[in-house]
């Protein structure tokens, strides 16, 4: 039940649902983007239980 992070490489519609194809390491996952409609190709996102739930804003830890 751990969150998985990956890069969104494609957005498409399947059976009325907005879906994302996400690169995770060398593999791909397909997840609904229902909770993350503002996301775009190239974004890094977090997925939980097969659903995208958060976008990762790239920032530098040192600046925090």
């Amino acid at each position, binding site marked *: 039940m751990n969150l998985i*992070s990956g890069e969104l490489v494609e957005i498409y519609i399947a059976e009325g649902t907005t879906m994302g194809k996400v690169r995770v390491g060398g593999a791909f996952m397909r997840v609904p983007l*229902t909770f993350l409609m503002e996301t775009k190709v190239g974004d*890094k996102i*977090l997925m939980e239980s*097969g659903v995208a*739930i*958060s976008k990762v804003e790239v920032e530098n830890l040192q600046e925090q």
Partner: protein
Amino acid sequence: MKYIDEYRDGHTARVLSERIRDIVTRPWTLMEICGGQTHTIVKSGLESLLPKEITLAHGPGCPVCVTPLELIDKAIAIASRPDVIFTSFGDMLRVPGSSKDLLSVKAEGGNVRMVYSPLDAVKIAQQHPDTKVVFFAVGFETTAPANAMSVWQARKLGLKNFSILCSHVLVPPAMEIILSSPSNMVQGFLAAGHVCTVMGYEEYIPLAEKYKTPIVVTGFEPLDILQGMYMAVKQLEEGRYEVENQYSRSVKREGNVAARKLLAEVFETTNRKWRGVGEIPNSGYKLRESFSDFDAETIFEVAHIETQESPLCIAGTVLQGLKKPHECPAFGVQCTPEHPLGAPMVSSEGACAAYYHYGRMHAQSNLHKAV
């Protein structure tokens, strides 16, 4: 991997631990809430990087660990039926019920399947219209949106053979139980960043104020956790008790608004029993009346099942941070990952399993290996 390795760098870890050392003047006890954070702390040996003044208590944030025994027994009763395909995350299959686990049901011929998402269970229900498909919906606020979506989708598809056995738990009420206990030792919290990606952190603000306890929303990589600790210690040393967000790269104050909207539509809060802790008011989700057709507990009439915990297991004390896993007399003796007595020894996020696999109580950071 980009954006992950940056948060595991051994040199930066030592810089952060020095910063904590520089500001600390007296003993403080911090609790990380989430099992994922406990796993990182023990695996990376972070405790060995901390000054002796800082004590870490490991919180009740492993969903597998806090799922009550009787719910496992209910799952086993449903999964044993010949007319059911029972689906679950892998972690739950090995959790011991009172007499067996779900894997044993599978070995005895039950149709038990591991899935990675409740949406996979919905697909199975579509493919097997004559069989009842049940998903074991456990977890914190992080897994709840996917589970809500599965029920919502099943209704949209007109499925009559899909249901969930729901035992969702919520983090803030558990934090309040710990903070309000007369034996509480926790002076600062690292809140679970992943939970806050969904829920945001507004509901922690009254907790921080009421109990005068700093709460830092914290990520899951070693450097996230060290930085979260630094922020919590800094607040304690300065006499502040605020909610701060270390995990701002993924967490917004309001969380994920679309996910919270669906959660509110599908679920309502309910009193929930936590394994080893007992019942906590308003600490769980149940399906709303309008979605009761998808409630496996009602459909299969298992609501009456009640069970007692093993007297040997002190998981309740461990999950409240009052004792460390190796202080349990059964740890590593009667209780091992191969033969777990209690749930914290089953899940990789369980404090007992983490200590067994990585900790062994040796105070040596192995962060450099994680880079």
